[in-house]
């Protein structure tokens, strides 16, 4: 399987930087005067930062590792399928929980939230799989 479609490790480092910067900006928005901006600008910044977070998570998941080969690529692709299933279940369960358990008003789930959820799921599961493969090798 061709692994050349993956991004370089540098893209992953840049993504970590973008995520860290976004989190710092979100935490310090009061001190930086971002809360004084108009509601429209605030919404714009929120959407841009959410988009950047999604893009960064995508780059993290689809960038090369030193031990990159066809097996890791297959694990990644299987996780895309699993994430789609988990996200569909989440979409089904979420309104039921909101209505019957939290007794809240049912709201639309933003696409960015679903994408972020799927990417986070893939990243966590992929790192767990990588760790278990390394552990297995150490046992040999």
């Amino acid at each position, binding site marked *: 399987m061709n692994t050349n479609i993956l991004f370089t490790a540098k893209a992953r480092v840049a993504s970590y930087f973008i995520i860290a910067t976004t989190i710092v900006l979100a935490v310090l928005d009061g001190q930086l005067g971002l809360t004084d901006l108009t509601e429209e600008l605030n919404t714009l910044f929120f959407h841009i930062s959410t988009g950047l977070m999604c893009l960064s998570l995508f780059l993290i998941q689809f960038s090369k590792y030193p*031990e990159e080969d066809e*097996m890791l690529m297959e694990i990644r692709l299987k996780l895309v399928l699993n994430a789609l299933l988990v996200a569909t279940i989440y979409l089904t369960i979420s309104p039921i929980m909101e209505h019957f358990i939290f007794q809240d008003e049912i709201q639309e789930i933003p696409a960015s939230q679903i994408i972020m959820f799927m990417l986070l799921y893939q990243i966590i599961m992929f790192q767990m799989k990588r760790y278990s493969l*390394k552990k297995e090798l150490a046992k040999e």
Partner: protein
Amino acid sequence: MKNYIKIERARHNLTQGDLAEKVGVSRQTINSIETKKYIPSAVLALKIAKIFNMPLDSLFELEEHD
């Protein structure tokens, strides 16, 4: 799918790392193939067979449930 990579590797006095380097994959992948946790692609299977200088069907064998 059954395979005889471990036996052939021992016969050729190769470590998992040596074989991995020769076929351009990680040691983890060779280990996963040997323990039947991962089925290699046709290209990788052919590369491994070439290293051991034997036909593919002598190195890999289908099992009943395959």
